[in-house]
């Protein structure tokens, strides 16, 4: 890890941000369910849901990353932010065995090999020249969900209103 990086603790009240593409913006600034689905992975064992931690960066900083990454550097960015608590609750309702490990203050889940794995993982994007993100993280427990339960998870996360972060005038 680079020096000076703030590490997210994934505390229950902290929020994780998800990019909302133009096609996923519904009337009333609501987030479509599909915004919480990622394309089928090449390697299911390494699958996770990409999010950004608001413990590490501000909404504006995350929006800058999304703007560069998904919108060619232009336009207003829509972001849906959801508490870790709500991710946990949604995961539990989809059958994920989520538990809190007090010894290292982290949430974990039973992975495919029946071993406990971290439910959330810090995955900063630092090596890319164009798209760096110090707050990038993964919701790891999605990889134990089948297609139907991924949809159930997305259903429980979707419907929320997104924030619109305006492009700064130069």
């Amino acid at each position, binding site marked *: 890890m680079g020096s000076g990086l703030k590490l997210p603790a994934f505390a229950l009240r902290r929020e994780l941000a998800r990019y909302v593409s133009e096609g996923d913006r519904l009337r009333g600034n609501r987030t479509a369910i599909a915004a919480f689905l990622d394309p089928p992975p090449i390697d299911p064992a390494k699958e996770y849901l990409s999010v950004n931690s608001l413990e590490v960066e501000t909404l504006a900083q995350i929006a800058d990353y999304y703007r560069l990454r998904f919108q060619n550097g232009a336009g207003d960015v829509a972001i849906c932010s959801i508490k870790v608590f709500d991710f946990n609750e949604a995961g539990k309702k989809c059958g994920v065995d989520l538990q809190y490990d007090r010894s290292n203050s982290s949430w974990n889940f039973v992975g495919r090999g029946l071993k406990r794995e971290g439910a959330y993982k810090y995955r900063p994007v630092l090596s890319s020249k164009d798209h760096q993100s110090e707050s990038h993280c993964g919701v790891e427990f999605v990889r134990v969900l089948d297609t139907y339960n991924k949809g*159930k998870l997305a*259903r429980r996360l979707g419907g929320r209103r997104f924030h619109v972060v305006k492009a700064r005038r130069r």
Partner: protein
Amino acid sequence: MTTNYKTSISNFDITVGEPAVDSLGSGRQIPTESHSSKAAESAITREPRSTTSVLPDAVAANWGKISKARLTKQMYGNIVRVATQSRGMAPAVTAASLGNFLEFWMRIRNAAVEPEVVLAPDGTLYAEWYKSKHQRLDVRFTVNKAIFGLFAGSSILEGAERPETVANLLKQHAAKPLQWAAD
């Protein structure tokens, strides 16, 4: 009777009451709907104004169903938008998913308001109805199934069934979720 509809998606003239020509230029006539005023508003039979306009593959593959589905121009525009959308490397909407949605729509249209439609990363189509935070319905159309979730107040109903079964279930549901629209 000829009414010119221009959508923001395509430059097609919509003619009601006259045989339309297949937009792929094959010359095949598309059956038109009845000439009632309601059908005049909603039926789309189309004659391409420009031979350079190209329909998305999923729309072209389902043209017969689209011509029967009595979509409003707004709904048709949303479908074309979804059909031309891509999510990075993910595919555009599949013909099978769009076809299943259209068949579902034809079963429920007399008891439903038009949903918002969205593309999922695997190329399947989502339809969402929303009234409030606790009154939401979504249906996702895969090759063989309609995967649905209904939040109706404190009750939750979720499942995956054949589209015709889901259509009947939702039409008969006491909460009338197919008529949900945000105020």
